[in-house]
Each structure stands twice: as structure tokens, then as C-alpha cells.
């Protein structure tokens, strides 16, 4: 298997990976369609939990399709387009985040700055490979500019709270997510043209960890922090980390890492992603919603995009910098 893979060109390798991925997704979709047919027949006898499980599965499948398509387009069209796509994704999740965080009139200019200056500049920095500025632009420069604009809005009421929300939104939705396309631009020696694999590695490992954690948690009771998440258990967390790291080792052939470093990097990404997801759950509980999109009482209209990628938003910067320090890039 290995010699065969090595004999392929980088493009052929990536192509093969996409063929595999779409194949798996197609199989999963077909299974879910068949399952849904069966459930319809005896709709009354189907226990509620099972139908809910199928719906969860279908939602997960939809987002997986979307993600795979985004990556495929990004890979086929080159780094520039991939960065642009992630920029758009970042815009949409920041929109979701801000919609559910009450801002006041005085924050208007700060919001304009966040959406139309900070976000595009951050992704332009990624695209133009100004790595040094890219890592400090938001935590250093935007961090000060945003509250200055809010202060000029002359509204002291809940000032710290409003600004904290805005800063958080920018850190998670823009800064965190911008580290995903930045992976494609890491100057690994002897690995040019195949850095899309690194993005793949990160996304697959983190999503697998989340999925396994979710599936295992269903069989457990007594969550660790019931006030925040009904599905976070130490055992399911460990299972998710284990599955993610194992996948990391299996995929190490695609990355510039040897198996052991691959395990370590995957573990780091999974820990950051799953704990980040927990933190986002706490924020959602604070806002009194269960999803970032529309659900029940929530008045806004989007499908909760942020729910699907929040783990990635936290895992990407940690992964990016761990890789950078470890390999002296």
C-alpha cells in the first residue's frame, strides 16, 4: 500500500483522498436514507430517542458533505480561493455569534470595524503569508481598537460586558478559524503542494473525536457539568480523544509527521477542540439557547453553522502553533 501511495504525485494523492471521502459520505447517506424509510413505516412504535438520533446523524451528515465540498473546491481552485472560502465561513459564523450577543447602539462602529476591516485584513494576512503579523494582528491591534471605537460611542452601560462579547466573537470566529487556511501556507520542507493534507488531518481528527464523544456519551448518564452540557462525560471525552489520536496515527502517512508526533499533534488538536466545544456550550447556556442557529424561541434564522465548527475554531490555532514550534517553521 505504502509504495503505491508514494508512487503517486501529490495531486493524485489528494485526488484519491477526496474520492475515498466522497465514497464514504455517499455510503453513509445511502444508509441514512434506507434507515429513514424503515422508520417511517412504523412511525408510532419508534421510540423518540431513536428518531432523534437519526435526525442528529442526518444533520451531521449534511454538515460533513458541506465541509467536504468546501475543501474540495478549495483544493481544486488553489490556496487563494480556499482562504476566501474560509473568510466567508468566518463572516457567517461571526454574524451568528453577534446576532445572539446583545450589543447596543454605541457598538455600531466597532461592529463595522470587526466585520469589514478586521475580518478581511486577517484573511488577507493569511493569504499574503505575513505570519508574524497574522498571529498578533487581532490579539494586539484589534484588541485595542475595538473598545476605543465603542468608548467613542459614549455609552458606558455594561461596557465591559459588551466589549468582551465582541472580542470573544472575533477571537473565536475570525482568529481561530483563520488558522485553518493558514495551515496550507506553512513552509514545510519537502512537503510543498501537499499541505491540504494537513488541513484534512486536522478536520478529520477533530470531527472524529467530536463524533465518537457524542456517540459514546449517549450511553452514559451523570454528566460532569450538567449545568453546562448534558453530553460531556470524562469517559466519552477519553474515548473521543483516543479515537481522534488513533486516527491521527493512521493518517500520519499523509502528513509530514512521523507516527508518534502525529499522535501528539492529533491529541493536542482533539483536547483543544473538545474543550472549546464545551466552552461554547457554556456561552450558549448563558444566552439561553441550545443552538447558535434557530431553535424554538430563538428569533434569528440561520442554521447553526457555529455549532458545527466551533471545535475547529479552538483546535486550529492550538494545532497551528504546536506544529510551528515543534518543527521550527
Amino acid at each position, binding site marked *: 500500500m505504502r509504495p503505491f501511495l508514494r508512487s503517486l504525485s501529490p495531486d493524485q494523492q489528494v485526488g484519491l483522498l477526496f474520492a475515498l471521502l466522497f465514497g464514504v459520505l455517499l455510503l453513509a447517506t445511502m444508509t441514512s436514507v434506507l434507515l429513514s424509510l424503515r422508520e417511517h413505516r412504523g412511525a408510532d412504535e419508534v421510540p423518540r430517542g431513536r428518531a432523534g438520533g437519526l435526525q442528529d446523524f442526518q444533520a451531521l451528515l449534511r454538515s460533513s458533505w458541506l465541509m467536504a465540498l468546501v475543501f474540495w473546491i478549495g483544493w481544486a481552485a488553489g490556496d487563494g480561493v480556499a482562504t476566501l472560502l474560509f473568510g466567508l465561513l468566518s463572516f457567517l459564523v461571526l*454574524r451568528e455569534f*453577534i446576532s445572539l450577543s446583545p450589543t447596543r447602539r454605541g457598538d*455600531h462602529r466597532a461592529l*463595522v470595524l470587526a466585520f469589514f476591516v478586521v475580518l478581511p485584513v486577517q484573511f488577507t494576512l493569511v493569504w499574503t503569508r505575513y505570519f508574524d503579523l497574522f498571529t498578533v494582528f487581532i490579539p494586539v491591534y484589534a484588541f485595542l481598537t475595538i473598545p476605543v471605537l465603542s468608548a467613542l460611542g459614549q455609552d458606558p452601560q455594561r461596557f465591559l460586558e459588551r466589549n468582551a462579547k465582541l472580542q470573544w466573537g472575533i477571537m473565536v470566529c475570525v482568529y481561530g478559524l483563520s488558522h485553518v487556511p493558514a495551515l496550507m501556507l506553512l513552509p514545510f520542507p519537502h512537503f510543498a503542494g501537499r499541505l491540504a493534507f494537513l488541513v484534512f488531518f486536522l478536520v478529520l481528527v477533530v470531527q472524529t473525536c467530536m463524533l465518537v464523544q457524542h456517540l459514546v456519551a449517549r450511553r452514559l448518564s451523570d454528566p460532569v457539568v450538567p449545568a453546562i452540557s448534558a453530553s460531556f462525560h470524562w469517559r466519552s471525552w477519553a474515548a473521543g480523544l483516543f479515537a481522534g489520536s488513533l486516527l491521527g496515527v493512521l493518517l500520519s502517512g499523509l502528513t509530514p509527521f512521523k507516527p508518534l508526533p502525529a499522535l501528539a499533534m492529533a491529541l493536542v488538536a482533539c483536547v483543544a477542540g473538545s474543550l472549546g466545544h464545551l466552552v461554547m456550550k457554556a456561552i450558549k447556556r448563558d444566552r439561553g439557547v441550545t443552538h447558535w442557529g434557530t431553535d424554538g*424561541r430563538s*428569533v*434569528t*434564522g*440561520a442554521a447553526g453553522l457555529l455549532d458545527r465548527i466551533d471545535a475547529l475554531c479552538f483546535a486550529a490555532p492550538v494545532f497551528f502553533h504546536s506544529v510551528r514550534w515543534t518543527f521550527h517553521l
Partner: protein
Amino acid sequence: MDWRAKAMSLLLLGFVRLLTGAQARWHGCPPKAEQRIYFANHQSHADLVLIWAALPQELRTITRPIAARDYWTASRFRRWITSAVFNAVYVERERKGDEDPLAPLMAALDHGDSLILFPEGTRGHAEDPQPFKSGLYNLALKYPEVVLVPAWIHNVQRVMPKGEVVPVPLLCSVTFGEPVRLGSDEPRADFLQRARAAVMALRDV
């Protein structure tokens, strides 16, 4: 609709959706091609665009918003966009002589069109909408067969507060509620109060 108006309307739709999502939530009635008057809270100039964008394509073409003549015909571009793209009905804000200010609205209703109405008259700043003006009552009295649909526009004032030029992207939605009927010999004040309550009730669904 000529090609320029069509292009503009597509562009505007894309822009509004990217900025706000422009989600329609049909809570008390389905989107249906019957003659209707949609009445909603009014906090921003963008209200008109949002409700227009939230309606499905089939209803958008038969539904006409109301626009203040002095503001929306002040320049050639404003006049073009309200008449060619939105197909708006112009009304006078100031009463001139003994001309009935509702006359253009009645002409549109006679013609079979649906209307989008902001019964507060002007944009409000407060959380709650201002008291409704009597235009809605007069139309309900004269056209009992037209269905009156209350609507609550959520979040738009945050997108573009009064006095700001650049809009901020935030998810907005329009909630359409259960139609309101004018009771037989219901007093004007009671009806307007009830209509306003129907709009405000949609805030929390």
C-alpha cells in the same frame, strides 16, 4: 420589469440575504397568494427592504410597499428603485388640502395588489412600537375581504441604527402572525390597540 430593475432586485436580494439572512417565519398563516395587507413595526428604512426580501418570490411580485413621497422621490435613483424595483405606492406624509392621503392605497387595493404598511407612520426608537395611526382601521373598514396580517421585524434597528451609513451583518427575521379581523362595529381605538398588540405578540414566539 426591465433587465436593469431585475438585476438590481437580484443584487439587492443577495446583499440583504448575506447581511441579514432575511428569514421569514410564518407562524399564524401560510404564505399564500391572496389579497393581504401586511402591517409591521417600523424602526429603520431597511424595514421595507427586509420584508420585501423575506417574502417568497411569488408574493413579492404582487405585494407593494408604501413609501413616503417626499423622501423616496427626492432623487432620480430613489425614485427609480422604489418604482421599478419595489413597485412602491407613494403616499404624502403631510396632508395637502382635502385630498385623502389613503387614496393611492385604495387605488392599489382596487387593482388587486397586496400592501406592506407601517401603521406607526414614522420610525420609532423605543422597544415598543408607537400607537398605530388610523389608516389601517380605515382600510380594514373599506376592504373587509382583504386579509390583515401582522408582522414583527426583528433586529433590523441593530443592523442600521438611525444616523449610521454602514450596515452591520446580523441575522434578522420577519415573523408573520395570525390574521386580524375587524369586528362588526368595533370602535377604531380598540381595533388599533388590538392590531398593535398582535404585532407585539409576535416578538416572543
